């Protein structure tokens, strides 16, 4: 009869592991947030991490932003032309970029560039006992390693998103005006008429939350990495996959909340 219970045992074991992992992640972020609030404030570390997460990802954001805007304009132009609505190309491109594509794609780029590097860096620090060394020196590893990254992520993502959106809009402009002979005035006037502050705020809230999400998961996976090079490699993969999936899921929930 015991074989009947095997599926339940497997489901139970996975559920147990999942809940335990969630709890561990919850505790990790609670301790990190506690240390964000309480002094000492490591401003220089935060600036250093903004350089690491924000500045070093900028070239990728510049490239992806421009090309996303260009391809969006190209695809949308032909769809709108069928209904004779080419004049709406500017607002459609801008709205898509500001509300969805900007925050999501810039977050995915940061996950691939900085998130993976963060996990690997903290993971290597863990396996080479550098985190233990910090602890042994009576320096709080959360305060020294985790909180500057979370703050840097939350501050960098909106700025990267802004760069992405601006370059995307200009990429779309290059295609619309340069290739499709749409007038410059039509493109920008449409954007001015249709884009509301609420749209910009929606993009801002999204990128803020994505910055938090990416640094939380990247730091967590690195901090609790497995043993050896294989452990760090697995942690890095898990960090990128989990961050990317959660960005898309969280994006859906934020959109549905803000659209209501």
């Amino acid at each position, binding site marked *: 009869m015991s074989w009947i219970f095997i599926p339940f045992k497997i489901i139970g074991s996975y559920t147990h592991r999942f809940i335990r992992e969630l709890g561990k992640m919850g505790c990790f972020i609670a301790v990190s947030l506690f240390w964000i609030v309480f002094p000492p404030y490591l401003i220089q570390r935060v600036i250093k991490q903004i350089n690491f997460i924000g500045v070093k990802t900028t070239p990728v954001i510049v490239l992806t932003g421009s090309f996303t805007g260009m391809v969006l304009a190209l695809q949308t132009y032909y769809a709108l032309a069928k209904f004779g609505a080419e004049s709406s190309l500017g607002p459609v491109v801008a709205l898509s970029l500001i509300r969805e594509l900007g925050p999501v794609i810039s977050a995915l780029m940061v996950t691939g560039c900085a998130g993976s590097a963060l996990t690997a860096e903290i993971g*290597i620090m863990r396996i*080479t*006992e*550098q985190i*233990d*060394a910090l*602890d*042994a*020196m*009576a*320096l709080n590893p959360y305060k*020294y390693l985790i909180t500057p990254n979370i703050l840097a992520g939350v501050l960098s993502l909106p700025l990267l998103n802004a760069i992405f959106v601006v370059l995307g809009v200009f990429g779309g402009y290059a295609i619309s005006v340069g290739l499709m002979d749409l007038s410059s005035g039509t493109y920008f006037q449409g954007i001015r008429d249709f884009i509301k502050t609420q749209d910009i705020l929606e993009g801002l809230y999204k990128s803020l939350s994505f910055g938090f999400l990416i640094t939380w998961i990247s730091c967590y996976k690195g901090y609790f990495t497995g043993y050896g090079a294989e452990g760090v490699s697995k942690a890095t993969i898990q960090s990128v996959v989990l961050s990317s999936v959660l960005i898309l899921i969280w994006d859906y929930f934020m959109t549905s909340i803000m659209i209501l």
Partner: protein
Amino acid sequence: MIKVVDLCKSFKGHEVLSGVNLTIAGGYSTALIGGSGQGKSILLKHIIGLLRPDKGKVLIDNQDISKLRRRPLKQLKERFGIVFQGGALFDSLTVFDNVAFPLREKTRLKEPVIRDKVLHELSRVGLSGAEKKYPSEISGGMKKRVALARCLIMNPEIVLFDEPTAGLDPLIGKAIHRMIWECQKSCKFTAIIVTHEIPAIFSIVDSIAMLYNGKIIFTGTPEEIKVSKDPVVHQFIHGELEGPISLK
């Protein structure tokens, strides 16, 4: 004084320490010996408060380290220094910055004062001229000496060494041993040295403790361990293949 009382620790159901009792007198050096995987480094991490025991306690001057709250624990940790097996140097920092790190993070000393202290400490461990190198550019022996300099710069009262000569050639190993001995005698800190360097370690420590099957089975002076009649101790320090210790 450091006192370990009935310390137990398990990892994923495997009991590594099963009732360790050990007393280490302040100001003296003690070698902690035992086979690989017997839990020597685990015991060291309990002593400095990096791990919490499942059962038992670690008393530092009669204060139970596992029961201390955040601030007193921080104050207690400031009395410690540790030299990790691989050095645990911060690989993104130069040798100079690694040694200066505790001073920059924990004191308000001005940069010229920090510079003088770091250069003095580096010359003490024979590393003058290596300030600008990164950990990846120096040898294993140099890494251990940088780690020793980083540890000693805060003048700790208790210094823990986790296999300070592992992976080094005999000459460098001997030089590190002598350096530890000289530093311990001049600074009068309490030293606990986890090591496999037998019998070389006997000449630089005041006492020896041997860990076997999760328990301390011997404590005494180097002279006493050499004449110990305990078959496990005898087999281990003489490196004999036949005896009660089974090779897994």
